[in-house]
């Protein structure tokens, strides 16, 4: 049967196929994946050593409790953002044209890469959390604390992937790569990522206070600093939902800009 008479192509099937393609790349091109996998572990170890004394001032005895969730979020963000690099390669090699010439819904070209990016982000999050647990990280929030970290980290991965994808579709060259990283780095740096808000002073504090990433970090860290509460969860969820919607729209509009060439 030809597709001439066939049903309209769904969004789910092509999106799943694109997820499978992206995950296959992880296995077949591990050199492109390992840096994103190992960097959060390095950061967790380095930061928890370097800033241990400062963190103790906030009453946190084990600096891993503070820095492992941060490393998990960074790992998820930078890992997922690599979907933007992969998309630029697809654009430059002409593979995206092959996908665009297919009669599938355009949303599959956003949903597939986003889903793949989130799944890729699972690996660094699991690894850095495992290293933290082995290193003696406390988890007073128990399984719920770990689950909330997972939600926060994968949510950050989703947001970063949407940002990277939108930028890739708009710029269509590797010139987009530094911009992708810069935005994620800045958003995390200008939050309560390194120090608790209470210890911050100067120009950084008011920015960190309104930065939605601070709420996401508070949500992610709560299970490692105490019990999980709704009060520490909903602002993070709200931030992730808002940022997720904005970046998904950004990615979808980016794809439309390719179609308008």
């Amino acid at each position, binding site marked *: 049967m030809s597709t*001439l008479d066939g049903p309209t192509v769904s969004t789910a099937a*092509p999106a799943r196929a694109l997820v499978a393609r992206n995950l296959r790349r992880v296995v077949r091109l591990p050199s492109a994946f390992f840096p994103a996998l190992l960097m959060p572990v390095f950061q967790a170890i380095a930061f928890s050593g370097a800033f241990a004394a400062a963190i103790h001032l906030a009453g946190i005895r084990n600096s891993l409790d503070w820095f492992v969730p941060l490393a998990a979020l960074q790992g998820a963000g930078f890992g997922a953002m690599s979907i933007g690099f992969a998309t630029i390669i697809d654009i430059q090699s002409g*593979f995206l044209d092959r996908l*665009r*010439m297919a*009669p*599938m819904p355009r949303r599959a070209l956003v949903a597939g890469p986003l889903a793949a990016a989130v799944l890729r982000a699972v690996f660094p999050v699991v690894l850095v959390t495992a290293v933290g647990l082995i290193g003696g990280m406390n988890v007073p929030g128990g399984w719920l604390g770990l689950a909330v970290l997972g939600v926060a980290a994968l949510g950050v991965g989703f947001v970063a992937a949407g940002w990277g994808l939108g930028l890739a579709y708009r710029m269509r060259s590797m010139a987009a790569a530094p911009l992708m990283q810069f935005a994620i780095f800045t958003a995390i740096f200008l939050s309560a990522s390194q120090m608790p808000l209470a210890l911050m002073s100067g120009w950084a504090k008011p920015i960190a206070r309104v930065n939605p990433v601070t709420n996401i970090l508070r949500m992610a860290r709560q299970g490692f600093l105490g019990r999980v509460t709704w009060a520490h969860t909903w602002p993070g969820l709200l931030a992730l939902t808002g940022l997720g919607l904005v970046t998904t729209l950004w990615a979808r509009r980016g794809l439309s800009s390719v179609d308008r*060439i």
Partner: protein
Amino acid sequence: MRTAPIVATGLVRRFGDVVAVDGVDLRIEDGEIFGFLGPNGAGKSTTVRMLTTLLIPTAGQASVAGYDVVRQADEVRRRIGVALQDAAIDPLMTGRELLALQAVMYGLPRREHRRRGDELLERVGLTAAADRRVGTYSGGMRRRLDLALSLIHRPTVLFLDEPTTGLDPMSRITLWDEVRSLNREGTTVLLTTQYLEEADQLADRVAIIDHGRIVRQGEPRELKAQVGAPTLWIDVDAAQSVAATEALARFGELRPAAEGRVGVGLGAGASGVAEVIRALDERGVGVRHLELHEPSLDDVFAEATGYHLEGA
């Protein structure tokens, strides 16, 4: 009246100040192989990208398979197969995986993926390499896989953008055979090429494009006939050159002669050769060697553009 599979009217595409395609008119009939001939940068690929919904025309209109390429892009996509200039194939995937991906993209039922993939792999002679990563394929294999991918959904119109560029002669002939075979099965083919021989061998009609404009369009034989009569070159004894020239004069325009070699443009075409031989024989001129030189598409190209096509 049924709409022709590919119709373009006044198609224009600008990139900033650069006019890549400047008012192209095309009408390609059902079951034709249409050759789009021109040098690099002439506007061939840009035209194809507009016809295959990848680029929006700046002006003009085009329909493919009866559907407008801008307003009904998805309908067009369901009916066309496209192999673009650089076979855009993920080198990390195997041939079989790529065919399966393509099948999903075109909405083929799941139970058909494997069967259709195997069928196409066999058709293009890649069954043995089906489970190898495409990165290990030769250029010819990649082109054949690209062709197979473009056929996954049994398109009625096939676009091949410079399908044999960079291929060795054997791979080129294999691909030509496949294109002919697809055409015999009823597929309309638009083929862009910078190879004159390719257009001559494959195309029922050709359009010559230069600087974004179509400068000649028609059947290769007609176009060549418009350039001039075929030239008959005859090698004779040097001493008989004058007699030979006198004998040839009544058959058409004489070509500049060299010692022992005379030539005439045959107004009556190739059918006049026998008459020429008889006339020479009557004058006692012995013929050592003769050759008939038909005008080539390169002559057509040169006549239309003022320069010869590179790579001809």
